[in-house]
């Protein structure tokens, strides 16, 4: 077994002490005077809260309904299609890539006059982008497989790990969670709670510990107890931060040392992300050779269309989809369903 590369602080220390109780009701002496201040809000604003939430659904009226209603295919039809794709965050280059062949087919009279047929053709083309993608989550039987979760801040890495851990445990497979986010406040505690929920063991380091050493420890621990899979959490980081991307490279390198083997590097992508998603995919792939995308928060009003661009420009497969905050809210990516939702 290779020794850990950074011996310092590799021994998993006990959990940090629980949060101190609520601070006592301190009243600073000088505070009393400050309570009545000269500047005043002209009559404390009343939050006239409107109970209009029920209307939300109407607001998101389907842009495609109007396309279907058209009697024939003309320039306006294409404009409506373009608009719908752009609204779904597909982005202009990919939108044009999808529409240009259809325009050509129309010009060659190979499409007919039915907007519905046009829409079907577009759906097929969009779905075909995902044809042949490898959506499997890989493991290797004679090593400890490691799935590394990477992505920018707040996209759903930790939650996705919690969901997968629940799934693995429910399927009767042991799994160890590596709390590789040693930076963000209470990231370890958050993963710990997912560990409790799922019944998976969590290996943590001290706050500020080297993430690669935490991941290494988790792999050692998994190997020792015979757990075949480690789900490694990492701190959210923007793909533009050179030192943090370097840190991630190191995590991957270390995780790949026997008995560990990195069999998946999953880029977690928030469906609300716009065109920046492409830059994220590009940079993370370059740094740590991403093997697939997890598209989260698709339960919201965002359509996540940027994965069409990611797929067509970088060829990355989309593997999983997050549909909520709960443990069961994770499904395999289904291109037809996804594209269908894009056009609803």
């Amino acid at each position, binding site marked *: 077994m290779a020794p850990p590369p950074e011996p310092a602080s590799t021994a998993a220390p006990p959990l940090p002490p629980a949060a101190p109780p609520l*601070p006592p009701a301190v009243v600073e002496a000088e505070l009393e005077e400050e309570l009545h201040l000269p500047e005043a809000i002209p009559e404390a604003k009343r939050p006239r809260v*409107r109970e209009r939430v029920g209307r939300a659904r109407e607001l998101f009226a389907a842009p495609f309904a109007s396309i279907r209603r058209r009697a024939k295919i003309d320039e306006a039809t294409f404009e409506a299609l373009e608009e719908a794709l752009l609204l779904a965050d597909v982005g202009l280059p990919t939108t044009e890539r999808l529409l240009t062949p259809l325009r050509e087919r129309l010009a060659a009279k190979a499409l007919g006059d039915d907007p519905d047929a046009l829409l079907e053709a577009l759906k097929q083309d969009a779905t075909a982008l995902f044809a042949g993608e490898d959506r499997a989550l890989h493991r290797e039987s004679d090593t400890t497989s490691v799935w590394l979760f990477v992505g*920018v*801040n707040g996209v759903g890495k930790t939650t996705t790990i919690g969901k997968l851990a629940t799934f693995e445990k429910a399927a009767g497979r042991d799994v160890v969670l590596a709390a590789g986010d040693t930076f963000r406040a*209470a990231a370890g505690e958050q993963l710990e709670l997912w560990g409790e929920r799922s019944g998976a063991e969590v290996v943590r380091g001290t706050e500020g510990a080297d993430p690669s050493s935490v991941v290494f420890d988790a792999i050692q621990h998994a190997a020792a107890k015979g757990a075949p899979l480690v789900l490694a959490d990492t701190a959210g980081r923007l793909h533009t931060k050179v030192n943090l991307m370097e840190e991630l490279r190191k995590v991957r390198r270390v995780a790949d040392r026997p008995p560990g083997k990195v069999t998946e590097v999953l880029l977690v992508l928030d469906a*609300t*992300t716009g065109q920046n998603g492409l830059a994220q995919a590009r940079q993370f792939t370059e740094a740590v050779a991403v093997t697939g995308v997890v598209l989260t928060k698709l339960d919201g009003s965002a359509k996540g269309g940027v994965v069409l661009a990611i797929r067509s420009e970088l060829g990355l497969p989309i593997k999983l989809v997050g549909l909520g905050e709960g443990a069961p809210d994770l499904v395999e990516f289904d291109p037809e369903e996804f594209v269908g939702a894009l056009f609803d």
Partner: protein
Amino acid sequence: MFETLTDRFEGILTRLRGRGRLGDAEIAEVLREIRVALLEADVSLEVVRDLLERIRERCSGAELSKSLTPAQQVIKVVDEELTATLGGESFKLTYASKPPTVVLLAGLQGAGKTAAAAKLARWFKQQGRHPLLVGADLQRPAAVEQLRVLGRDVGAAVFSEPTDPVAVARRGVEEAVRVGRDVVVIDTAGRLAIDEALMREVAEVSAATRPHYTLLVVDAMTGQDAVRTARAFHETLELDGIILTKVDGDARGGAALSVKQVVGKPVAFVSTGERPAEFEPFYPDRMASRILGMGDVLSLIEKAEREYDEDVAAKAVERLRAGRFSLEDFHEQLQQMKKMGPLQNMLGMLPGIPKEVRDAGIDESQVSRIEAIIRSMTPQERDDPSVINGSRRMRIAAGSGTSTSDVNNLLRQFKEMQRFMRSSGMAGALARSGPRRKKKQGGRSSSRKGAGSRH
């Protein structure tokens, strides 16, 4: 990317060289390029449409500038429109007369609410306040613990209890009153705009705490959904402002435009990193140039204009010295002065202006009338006003929509001015029209850093 956009602009607009106005065909082409740029920056489709219309209006038939290439001129218009949309009334926080001042944060999952709560607490402390953080997110695992750790980092007390969000928020405000905290910042759970139950819940939190300020926390990387989400949160909570997060990345941040346009309330702060100190007030011009992706080009434009201005001023002085200061020069000077901001301020800054002149007060509408009159003159008349006879006066008055006595007044004033200038320090003053240059440089170019720069 911005080089290519400028290049494309130049390509389209070189055809215009030597012509006096921007042509419709060229404008249409340029607008197409702008549309691409804005969409790439994630500005929402409806806002893009709106902006393009305004840009078209301002460009069509516009006279070509003397200091800028046509491409630069269009870019400048775009920049101004973006800045205007992003700007307007800036966020002003007034503390409640009866503390605590309550601030409620809301937004989608993972937008950065909890981080922003701590940042705000830190900011309030710097303002000499005593904030209490209230953890009303009882949903996400370890959300309260996260707030506690951050609260400890920034030295702000944190209140929470495992009851329900509405109760926690209400009790939080009561607690602040009890312990004498003058600001309360409430962190709420992330929620989707289409999640009716959770939207109702945050509405109840709001009703129970009556926040003075409700801020929507928006991720700068958000795409087209920004509009839908902002609209729904605004309908439910009546927002007072926006906090834009994760501006430290390379997202162009078009969502800022979309949300600002939909909500109509200012962007209060931008968050530029994970650490509590990485939090700044919002500068519309920085954000505009970032969205446009053309910070460098914009500083170039400023420089070109500044140099042109200096050039014009220097020439004017020369002509003044030689006693050849014409109405044409006067017109140029008026243009320059208009660009410098209110004339009153301008005169105040110039050395050597007699007190009577400074105090006389300048009527800006008067200036427009003067301009109109000069514009209705022929080049010959501008160069040598002595040729302006009775019939010319009538033509000029009709052309400028003024009366012959207005024309007479101007000519008389101009004559006096020529005399006054020759005899006073005005010539030197014009050559040194320094205060403005300093002001402009300080305001603009220094602000091009930060949000405008990419790391």
